[in-house]
């Protein structure tokens, strides 16, 4: 059997002296979709940030391996080049750099890492336009500054476009559904579904069940108090939707 794409073991993480993750175990195989759900403050965002190399987090124990490689020892850009992608909850606005330019810089950094020659401007544009179509994004957004003045829906769609262009193997989606109306949510979900692939895995971090109506998970994990307290199939998401998180906290107490 192939090793899992992502293997997290006993991961304990603190921020500014406060322990947030208290021992996470998670194994994600290629081709699967995992949902991580949990109340606010349970450590969902910390998990996605620490896996993608954001500074300011202290790993106190545990490991995270990606395709067998020690992920936690790599700087953020190396992880991205290896094939780990984070769709941000709050995509950052960068006035002064066009979307196209930014995507090209990122795409060529990846190609260079894999020993491939940089793509010419023309070939790159073809590649991006195809992907923009796939995620139903107006190509005009490519010429605008990165996320600058984008609506909430456009920002999230832009994250999915980046995902489509960079073709990562592991996609972490951090609260991608937050701030979206139902139409935008459907478009984003269609984009994600279009990118599902036997070689690619998704970890969908979300507070609410509604994205999972459109992106069907294979596994659902409930994160509470820095631990995965329950794992199950997609029916677990429905149970959480119906009963909220209260019963979990009651069970923990």
């Amino acid at each position, binding site marked *: 059997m192939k090793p899992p794409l992502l293997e997290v073991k006993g991961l304990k993480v603190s921020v500014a002296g406060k322990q947030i993750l208290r021992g996470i175990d998670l194994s994600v195989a290629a081709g699967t979709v995992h949902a991580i759900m949990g109340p606010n403050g349970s450590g969902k965002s910390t998990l996605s940030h620490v896996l993608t190399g954001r500074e300011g987090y202290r790993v106190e124990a545990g490991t995270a391996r990606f395709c067998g490689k020690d992920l936690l020892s790599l700087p953020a850009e190396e992880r991205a080049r290896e094939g780990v992608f984070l769709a941000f909850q709050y995509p950052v606005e960068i*006035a002064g750099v066009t979307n196209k330019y930014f995507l090209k810089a990122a795409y060529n950094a990846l190609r260079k890492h894999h020993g491939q020659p940089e793509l010419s401007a023309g070939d790159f544009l073809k590649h991006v336009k195809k992907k923009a179509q796939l995620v139903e994004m107006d190509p005009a957004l490519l010429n605008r*500054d990165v996320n600058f003045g984008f609506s909430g829906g456009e920002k999230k769609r832009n994250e999915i476009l980046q995902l489509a262009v960079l073709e990562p193997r592991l996609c972490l989606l951090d609260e991608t559904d937050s701030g979206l109306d139902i139409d935008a949510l459907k478009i984003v979900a269609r984009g994600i579904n279009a990118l599902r692939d036997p070689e690619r895995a998704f970890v969908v971090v979300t507070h609410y069940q509604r994205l999972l109506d459109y992106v069907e998970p294979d596994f659902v994990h409930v994160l509470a108090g820095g631990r995965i307290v329950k794992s199950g199939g997609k029916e677990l998401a429905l149970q959480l939707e119906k009963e909220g998180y209260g019963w979990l906290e009651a069970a923990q107490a």
Partner: protein
Amino acid sequence: MIEGARRSARWRLAERGLPRPGDEDWRFTPLAAILGKSYTAARPAGLTEAELEGLCLAPLDGYRLVFDNGRLAAELSRLPQGLRCGGLADEIDEALLLGPEEAGFGALAAARFCDGPYVVIPKGMKLDAPLHVVTVATSAEEQPREAHYRGVVVLEPGAEAVIVEEAVGRGGGEFFTNSVTRCELAEGSRLELYRLMRETEPLVSVHGLRARLGRDAGLRSHVVGLGGALARCDADVVLAGEGCEAELNGLYLACRRQHLDFHTRVVHAVPRGRSRELYKGVLDGQARSVFDGLVEVLPGAQKTDAHVYNKNLLLSEGGLAHTKPEFKIHANDVQCRHGATVGQLSEDALFYLRSRGVGTAQARSLLVYAFASEMLGRMALTKVREALARRIEAASGLEGA
């Protein structure tokens, strides 16, 4: 005639003197780096076409006036036919050389005047290509050298021109360049004026733009501060005709121990003038910058609409930006806004770029480019804009750029 003009300037200088370290206008400028030396007048270094091209930011098609250590290099210049354009030394009279308001370094430039551009764009004429005015300072190791320029640009009513002033330098010795460019914009004329400060690092310079705008005239200035150990660039702009408009743009990138210094004074003397000023700076290493932007609205200059902004990006612990946008308002029906910021690269933006595989150094230069691109976007000359963009992109942080 030229000797007489120089003599008057010497009197003026003797009367009013050079700035002193305690003067408000020179408080943050390390004057000792300029005044504490004894300079001898530079002689032409025999600059060649190939050398010149290597020194300029970008080869610009069109007209060119080249000054080699203070003197017009006629063989390197390409002058437009049929209009007055050349070295001021050939045309000099006292009124051109020394405005009544000149003192300090401006008077010094007249007293030790070598040469400078003299351009008259006749009534209603649109200069069909940019005029590139290059001053080249070639230093000598053994002895500090100096060159003093005074230039005059006249746009007659309805005339239009694009002028690129570029100051470059070479050699490892000390060199002091002191220059003033006077611009007269008559009714309805338009001038887009670039000032590219690209001296090498032992060089020091003081430059002043003095512009006077007539009715409905438009000045668009782009000051780009890149080079020099100490470079000071002042702009004095008088909005003297109703409905005229001045846009002052600045972009400076300083590193190591460079000191880049910008003092602007915009005077709204008549009603319905509009001025827009934005200077943006990036500081790395131990670099210092000064921005002092004063707008004066004189009594009666109603309906004045003026903005002054200065924004700085610090890339290092050692960088320091002084900033002082300021208004003096003597009219009551005006719209005036000002602001200043000093900030650092956004950690969020850095992480965002890195999380997409962009390396830290490239991410930093991309964000510097993003900060600067607002100013580049205002430049109409594609070649200048693109050459500057390449320069900024190529640098990962400014050190070693």
